[in-house]
């Protein structure tokens, strides 16, 4: 694995226990995230990407269950090694001080009966109970100024803010304590394009300024292309491909990534785009071998029988495919 990795995950299996059986949302995967980068995780709905970062953040509530896996988090040169079955609660100690989580944008993430400044003060007091109102306010004002958010937001109630402004407030909440890792799960879904761009740019700026790590999950390939440094593509609970964003979008090597990117319409290009035939498999009973083989035009007998391992085919470019495309 890489030298400057901040998160290293191995053997991770997280299933949803349901009446019909186990939904194998994340099935035996391992990867690493480098420090000081924006790491994107993408894939279609139900590929396990949201489950994955929930598990990474330690939000494990029934019916979700982690069967195996370990993660080591390297914060300020202190390595924290955790086994999921035993030490989940140790992750929670890092919450918000060392790592934070931006949930899917919703109109409803802020307490409707408290002013924005009070919600910030509450967070700052979590670190130091003696923080006075005045001190806390100063810290928040400074960070608002830096992000270009109007100060009058602080004395407002959430219902007085627009959806985009609320999500910007949420992001500044997630970064006010300067955590080393910020997870974001579809942070701009349901927002308008212009607002979406503004928020993504704000996140990128925050990351560049404080040199921390952002892990962004989104199904929108366009967003990944615009802001992530490296991208991981998931399919049916497995990793297909990890690599530098530009590389992935220019010359993807996994057939799924390639077909997916080819199917996306682009502005200024009317040439025919085709969907990938078929549909993603049911994760209650995923197919044997490569999980994409049913929809893959390049599949061979080997793909049906055996599961391709994730291998580094180029420097820092990982692919799980027996027949990677040139």
């Amino acid at each position, binding site marked *: 694995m890489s030298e400057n990795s901040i998160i290293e995950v191995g053997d991770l299996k997280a299933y949803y226990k349901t009446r019909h059986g186990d939904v194998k949302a994340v099935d035996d995967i391992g990867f690493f995230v480098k420090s000081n980068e924006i790491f994107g995780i993408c894939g279609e709905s139900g590929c396990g990407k949201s489950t994955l970062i929930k598990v990474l*953040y330690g*939000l494990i509530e029934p019916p979700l269950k982690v069967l195996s896996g370990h993660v080591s988090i390297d914060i300020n040169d202190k390595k924290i090694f955790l086994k999921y079955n035993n030490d989940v609660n140790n992750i*929670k100690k890092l*919450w*918000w001080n060392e790592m*934070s*989580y931006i*949930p899917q944008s*919703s109109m*409803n*993430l*802020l*307490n*409707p*009966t*408290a002013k924005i400044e009070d919600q910030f003060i*509450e*967070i700052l007091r*979590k670190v130091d109970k003696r923080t006075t109102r005045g001190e806390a306010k100063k810290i928040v004002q400074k960070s608002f100024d830096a992000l270009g958010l*109007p100060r*009058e*937001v602080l004395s*407002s*109630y959430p*219902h*007085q*803010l*627009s959806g985009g*402004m609320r999500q910007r407030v*949420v992001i500044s*909440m997630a970064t006010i304590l300067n955590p080393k890792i910020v997870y974001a799960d579809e942070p701009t879904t349901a927002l308008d394009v212009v607002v979406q761009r503004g928020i993504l740019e704000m996140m990128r700026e925050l990351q560049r300024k404080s040199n921390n790590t952002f892990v962004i999950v989104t199904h929108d390939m366009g967003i990944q292309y615009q802001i992530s440094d490296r991208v991981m593509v998931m399919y049916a609970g497995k990793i297909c491909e990890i690599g530098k964003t530009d590389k992935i979008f220019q010359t993807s090597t996994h057939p799924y990534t390639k077909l997916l990117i080819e199917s996306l319409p682009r502005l200024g290009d009317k040439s025919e785009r085709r969907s990938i035939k078929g549909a993603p498999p049911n994760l209650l009973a995923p197919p044997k071998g490569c999980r994409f083989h049913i929809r893959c035009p390049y599949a061979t007998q080997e793909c049906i029988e055996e599961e391709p391992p994730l291998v580094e085919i180029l420097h820092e470019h990982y692919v799980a495919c027996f027949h990677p495309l040139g």
Partner: protein
Amino acid sequence: MGDTKLWGINSLRAFVKYLVRRIVLYVIALWAGLTICFFLPRLVPIDPVTVILSRVTATGAFIDPETYANMRKTLLYLFGLEGSIQEQYFNFLSKAIVGDFGVSITVYPSKVNDLIAKALPWTIGLLATMALISWVIGNIVGLLAGYYKNKIMAKAVQIFAIAVYPIPYYVLAIIFVFVFCYLLRIFPLFGSKGVGFKVSFSLDFISSVIFHSFLPALTLFIVNLGWWILSMRALTINLSEEDYVKFAEMRGTEKKIILNKYIFRNALLPQITQLTMAISTIFSGAVLTEFIFSYPGLGQLLWMAVSSSDIYLLMGITSLSIISVTTSALIVDLVYPLLDPRVRYEERHV
């Protein structure tokens, strides 16, 4: 920010509209209630004047026709039965508004207001205290039972609330009478003041009042408590699923803060609305409870009126109930917007 005020004015205008609508509703409900009060007795063939006069003649005293006619006239005046039905109606309404409900038949010539004035403090004292105490305690218990819904204690509380809430006030009152007054003989059965006590501020008097009003208070408390626990628990469970509570939990926020600032504060407003809707039920429950415990409030008075067909007393009590229930609901509804920041603060949209 030239036109940020636009929204402010808009919502202020909307708020005024809400107030006006609410007050109009109040006036009409009041008027409709009082009108029913006025017309119902007139649909039933009992003539109060004849009832009183026959009571006088029944004593055997001789009354000459002229005196008899005079008495009749006076009684008609006192009972507001002079003139056409319209005149009587407007007369009744104008008097009811200032709280004048005429003269009682049973304890003639006591004025109905005086009788009510004597009973009312007892009822209000009992009802308001108990409604408030059970609201506060029920909300706290319900909050905890909802947030820790999987704990055994919480389940026990839930079973208690489900078992207690559907019991009507008077049935619980009967059970308490049976257990405490008959089986255990701890509490007296009649009246809130021991015989011979006069209203005063002595310690004896106060302790006696508390002693005598304990069981009616307990009845009101327990039934109301069940209701507030159930509705607060349901609210808490719903609110715990809200995105902002989940987000606070994700931040590792202390449970104490989540319970207080995130759930309790947000549950309070709907609980206040519930209180408005419950006022009428609590009131009638209190009246019935008082009756069972012979507590000298409106309940006792109502029973007296019912058992002696004292129409004017009955009309007085009914009108007063309507006035007080609708008014208290109005007050809560008017206070409510002041507590809700979504109404208190104009839309700003920054």
